[in-house]
């Protein structure tokens, strides 16, 4: 059994929380005491049924306002798979929280209200999905019960969305007509839409390729911690602990350590009481090298035959996440895996109007702005392009005055 991580995008009234509530409810994932708490709360639908949306609004302020402010993570499982849902807010002022939820997801569910079709929010949500390189997209045309389960309405919406998907280069898009409120095509196929020949949402989620880990062959392991017991019997023990970001390290593989460029060979791989022959993407292991090279936290061990880029000048997409605007005159910290170094935004190339997808020249970045910048770092980073290797192609910006995470970066090119 494996895990599928997905997030839901849709605005407040598209029924996003209801959709998640419905998935949990119809898969029997809500326990009796939680259900009891739901029933005793005051929010009910017009017909007196339980308001499933409040299952996901965990904060007092969210329940008061009836909206989702911050990401909530929900868990459920079926016979076939485990699911982690990042329930993200749809409001434009919470774009940063949507990016947060999307950054760890492998699949996005985009909700469209059947009565309204493709709207500005749909464009915005789809843009973020494309920006963050999420492989699979499920477009749920919701509230089909409000349009008499009309195939014509559904077809018109997907024709329109297909144009957007092409524009955004979304490769794998699946369309499902649903009613989250009534439960049509969420867990079970609906009898109300005989014209729909596809699967229910849950059935689709159970079998879609998870692709949790980068399948790229680029073997990368940032060193997080050097293990040196320094005891008598382990006097010379020196193990490099980290999580393999991508690719595979095999015994006797030739490796390069960056930034020093030192070469060596994988001598031993350890995992607690085991000594496997290989360490694969996603695994947290300890690697031993044949040669005594100087390695510390922040260094990256990579396969010698497929080196990453190394540069102090990088073109990247930036999502600004702080209420204090970007200041191009000051230094920030950039955190790329276990490496932290100083940096400056040396140039703003453009900003994207995420409602229309138009690019504009810009001099500033404010909360929730997204665009392209050139970043100059104090130490060179050993990175891959985000499209090739999500894990080694992303970084965050930290404001050293407030210590807040203020930006999300996706590397697009090394500047020569």
């Amino acid at each position, binding site marked *: 059994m494996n895990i599928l991580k997905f997030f839901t995008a849709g605005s407040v009234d598209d029924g996003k929380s209801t959709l998640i509530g419905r998935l949990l409810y119809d898969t029997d994932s809500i326990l009796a005491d939680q259900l009891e708490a739901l029933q005793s709360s005051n929010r009910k639908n017009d017909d007196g049924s339980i308001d499933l949306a409040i299952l996901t609004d965990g904060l007092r302020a969210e329940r008061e306002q009836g909206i989702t402010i911050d990401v909530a993570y929900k868990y459920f499982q079926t016979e076939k798979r485990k699911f982690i849902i990042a329930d993200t807010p749809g409001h434009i002022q919470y774009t940063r929280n949507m990016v947060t939820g999307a950054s*760890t997801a492998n699949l996005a569910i985009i909700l469209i209200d059947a009565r309204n079709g493709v709207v500005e929010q749909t464009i915005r949500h789809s843009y973020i999905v494309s920006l963050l390189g999420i492989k699979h997209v499920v477009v749920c045309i919701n509230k089909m019960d409000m349009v008499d389960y009309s195939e014509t309405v559904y077809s018109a919406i997907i024709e329109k969305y297909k144009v957007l998907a092409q524009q955004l280069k979304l490769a794998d898009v699946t369309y499902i007509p649903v009613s989250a409120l009534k439960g049509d095509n969420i867990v079970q196929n609906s009898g109300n839409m005989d014209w729909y020949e596809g699967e229910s949402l849950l059935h689709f989620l159970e079998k879609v390729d998870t692709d*949790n880990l980068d399948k790229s062959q680029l073997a990368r392991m940032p060193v997080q911690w050097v293990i040196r017991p320094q005891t008598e019997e382990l006097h010379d023990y020196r193990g490099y*602990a980290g999580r393999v970001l991508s690719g595979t390290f095999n015994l006797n593989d030739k490796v390069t350590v960056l930034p020093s460029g030192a070469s060596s060979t994988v001598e031993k791989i350890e995992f607690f009481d085991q000594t496997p022959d290989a360490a694969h993407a996603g695994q947290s292991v300890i690697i031993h090298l044949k040669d005594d090279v100087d390695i510390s936290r922040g260094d990256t061990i990579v396969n010698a035959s497929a080196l990453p880029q190394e540069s102090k000048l990088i073109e990247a997409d930036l999502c600004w996440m702080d209420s204090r605007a970007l200041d191009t005159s000051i230094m920030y910290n950039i955190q790329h895996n276990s490496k932290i170094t100083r940096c400056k935004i040396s140039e703003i190339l453009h900003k994207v109007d995420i409602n229309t997808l138009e690019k504009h020249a810009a001099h500033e970045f404010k909360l929730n702005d997204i665009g392209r910048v050139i970043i100059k770092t104090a130490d060179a980073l050993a990175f891959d392009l985000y499209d090739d290797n999500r894990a080694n192609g992303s970084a965050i910006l930290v404001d050293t005055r407030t210590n807040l995470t203020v930006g999300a970066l996706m590397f697009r090119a090394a500047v020569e």
Partner: protein
Amino acid sequence: MFNKQQQQRQHFAMSTYNFDYLDELEAEAIHILREVAGQFEKPALLFSGGKDSITLVRLAEKAFRPGKFPFPLVHIDTGHNFEETITYRDQMVERIGEKLIIGSVQESIDQGKVVEQTGKNASRNALQTVTLLDTIAKYQFDACIGGARRDEEKARAKERIFSVRDEFGQWDPKRQRPELWNIYNGKIHKGENIRVFPISNWTELDVWNYIRREKIDLPSIYFSHERDCITRNGQLMAASPFLNMDSEDIVERKQVRFRTVGDMSCTAAVESDATLIDDIISEISASKISERGARMDDKVSEAAMEDRKKGGYF
């Protein structure tokens, strides 16, 4: 489902690369623990003797052996613990050879920093927040690793893996840092600290399946045993000197086990014949009551957990 997982136990030995969900959760938690080691000066692992913090200890062994843990274990001892938990704690510390620091709620009471609650439902659960914050201040811990999971409670579902607390220990849900990809920002100002939750993404069932797979020993109270209990507010409570009992309380001998381990005065038992981990897993899989359903402290109001966390509770 479970048989399949057992077959996959030898994942590393298999020729094909098979990354089961427990492997993925485990690798993520180890990564988080190593980030704590790398990013903080004085971290600590909060150890309650419950299954979640016991799981954390195993994960720390996997993250740092054959080296020492780069942090001590810290137990905030309410003084109202199950004896079995304390015995287990001491034996475990002996076995792993790591340092244990104890923060004592009794001491906080003796020092006049907190006042013992009175009344029938008195508990030391709320008092331990003060002892925890004092212990953090005394040892100047900048990061505290804990075994909380997002599936436990709806306010916890909102919390980041690296959760910043101000110098008063407070969590502010509206000022959470975005947490992107697998990059954790541990930068803080002096006086602040970060609560780190490596098993955020695990569910109760995941923890049990992991304990079974790893053959981890647990305190005996997790397994079915006979115990004197009283029924209070619809819950089965272990009869003990720590519980304010009166003539209305009828003590009955019951076959019980505990699903979660906390203070004796606020942790309820469930009737159960489950003596093996397999039995427990079947029982939980079939249960219609959440784990937190057996915690009196969550029943105070709809925002009970959120409010306690804002006040510095773990």
